[in-house]
Each structure stands twice: as C-alpha cells, then as structure tokens.
C-alpha cells in the first residue's frame, strides 16, 4: 500500500494531466472525485481552472490533505484524456492498484507528444479539405495543403520559445504571404486558399471545450477559454490582415 501523501499526489497528477491536455472542467473534477473516493477518502473537494487546480481530500480520521497545482499550458491531446479517464475508471472499479495507476501516469507524463513530420503532413490534408469545402477547386486545395504543412512546421519551430499568440500570428503571416506570392504565378482564389491554410491554427478544441464548460455552468473556465480562443483568433486574423494590407489587397 502506498503512503497517503503519495496517493494525494497521484490524484493531483491525474488532474494535472487532464488539464494540460485540454479536458473539460467537469471531467477533471469528476475524475478527481472518483479517484479520491476509490482511494478511501470520505470527502473530496476539487476546483479546477485552466491555469490551476485545487484539491482537498478528507480522510476518515478527519485529517485534510490540500494541494494546489499550477497548470501551465500544454497541447491538445485527446488520446491522453481518454487514457487517464479509463485509468481512473479502472482504479475506481478496483481493477488496478494505486501502484499500477502511478506507473501508468508516469509513463503517460513522460511519453509527451511525439511531433513527427507526418503529423504536419496530415494537418496539411486538413487545410486541403477546408479549402475545398469553402468552395475552392483542386488548385486552391493543393496550395492550401502545402502551405498548411508549412505553417505547422513554422509553428512547431516556435513551440515553447514564443507565446502562443505570437506563434499563431507568425503562422498566419507566413500562410498569407506564401499564398499571396503564389497567386501571382497561379490563377488562385486567394481568400479560399488562405482560409484553408490558417484553419490548422484555429483553436478548434479550445472553442469546443469552452462551449461545453460554459453551458455546463463552469463559468470561470468557460470564460477564460473563450478569451484564449478569441485572442488566438484575433492573432490569426491580424497576421493575415498585416500581409494583405501590405500587399494592397
């Protein structure tokens, strides 16, 4: 049996992983509650926000363990959310022990996010699809696909070194500039191609989570995530706008 302090840390780590991967608040709090009860605490209180996590666990003897964890922005990773979710369920159902959960969580924490070139190529495929869905032809689609891949490469070079806002702005500037230049050689619908290419930067997951949080009554995180999405969207728009107005659109 692992010591109580470690058990508290374990629950906190699960919450932290979920938050950095962009889970909804309801899921984080539910998971902590579920794991806390399974670990034998009689009362579990948690308060999750996108930037911080507070947990209080009351044991049967009346002792209270309270921890605070500062959450720093991570990357959307739905697979990890699903993993932690099923881990906590298996733990609550008594199928796996606390030690096993700990090992699994450590493994998940280390594994992080492999960022391969193929991921960017696939992202470019998304840009292609969007350009065609917005009414573009194959030419717009192909240009958007190539530029979308390029944008993801640029963003991954800036990863961790620059704030997310700057990443988005620079990414969209690159997209707009390249497509604008390409348009002088090809007969292109510039707008459609640019929309497709910058969609890879759009904060899609943040928006969906923000909606789910807001409508689920999680006002603090709903609003802060909406603000995050808005800031990123404005950054993308500004990047494109700067290039287009320089190019005399």
């Amino acid at each position, binding site marked *: 049996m692992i010591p109580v302090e470690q058990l508290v840390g374990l629950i906190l780590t699960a919450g932290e992983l979920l938050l950095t991967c962009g889970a909804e608040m309801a899921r984080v709090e539910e998971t902590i509650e579920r794991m806390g009860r399974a670990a034998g605490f009689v009362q579990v209180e948690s308060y999750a926000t996108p930037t911080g996590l507070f947990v209080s666990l009351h044991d049967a003897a009346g002792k209270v363990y309270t921890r605070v964890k500062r959450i720093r922005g991570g990357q959307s990773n739905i697979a990890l959310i699903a993993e932690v979710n099923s881990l906590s369920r298996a733990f609550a159902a008594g199928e796996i022990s606390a030690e096993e959960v700990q090992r699994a969580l450590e493994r998940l924490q280390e594994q992080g996010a492999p960022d391969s070139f193929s991921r960017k190529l696939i992202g470019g495929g998304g840009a292609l*699809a*969007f350009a065609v869905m917005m009414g573009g032809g194959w030419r717009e689609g192909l240009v958007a696909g190539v530029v979308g891949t390029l944008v993801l490469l640029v963003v991954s070079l800036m990863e961790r070194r620059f704030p997310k806002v700057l990443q988005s702005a620079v990414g969209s500037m690159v997209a707009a500039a390249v497509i604008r230049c390409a348009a002088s050689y090809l007969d292109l619908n510039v707008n459609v191609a640019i929309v497709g290419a910058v969609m890879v930067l759009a904060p899609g997951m943040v928006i969906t989570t923000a909606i*789910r949080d807001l*409508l689920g009554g999680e006002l603090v995180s709903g609003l802060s995530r909406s603000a995050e999405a808005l800031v990123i*969207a404005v950054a993308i*728009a500004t990047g494109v706008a700067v290039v287009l107005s320089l190019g005399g659109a």
Partner: protein
Amino acid sequence: MLVQTAMGFLAAVTFGYIFRVPANQSVRCGVVGGLGWAVFLAAQGHLGEVGAVFLAATAASVCSEVLARRHHQPVIVFLTPGIIPIVPGGKAYLTMLSFVQKDYTQGVVLLVTTLFLAGAIAAGIIITSAVFRNFSRTKLKGR
C-alpha cells in the same frame, strides 16, 4: 456532394490527428465530420445557414454520443474533430477581411452571422448532450 462529404471526412480525420485522438478512433471521427458536413449541405437550401448548422451540429453530436457509448470513449474524442467541418472559420476570416478593407457594414453583417452560426453549433451540442445525459444514464454508467 460526394466529394464534399469526403472532404468533411478528411477534415475531421486530419484535425483528429492534430488534436491527437486515439489512433484507432480516427476513422470514426471522420464519419462524424462527414455526416455533419453532408447534413449541413443538404439542409442549407431549405433551412438557411443557421438552421442547417444547428441541424448538422445536432446530427454530429448524436452520432458522437452513440459512438462514445458503443466504443467506451469520452464523447470529446468524436465530437471535437467531428464538429470542425461546420465551424464557421471561413466566415470569421471574411469578417476580418471586410474590416481590414474598411467595409464596416459588410464586416458587421458577417460578424453577426458568424456569432449566430457559433451559437447554433453550441445549441446543437448542448441540447443533444443534455438529452443523452438524462435518458441514457441507466443503460450505461458514465461516459
């Protein structure tokens, strides 16, 4: 129409990769995305844009909730990439473009349309998830 549905599928699968859904679920994300986009295109002529987006969001959410229950995954695995094709990214872009070109009237029109479309998506998601939460609790515990 077939090409467009395929593109909706492709968009959802690729964005699934960007959001890192479990690899073995990405085809199902694509199905949700393709379905949403097809519903939108089919309904657009009859209901107008906002109504069509609402219907598409509802269809995508229903599909996600069903898949999530059948394959024991969180709903967001399917819903987040699946909803991507109907997100009004193009409208948001055109809004910005109008403002940059100092066409404020057009900009405000597009802005309001974008907000309505976003609201329609939110409504579709929340109504579906509320219905599923209330009526399927007994059949399957948790999501």
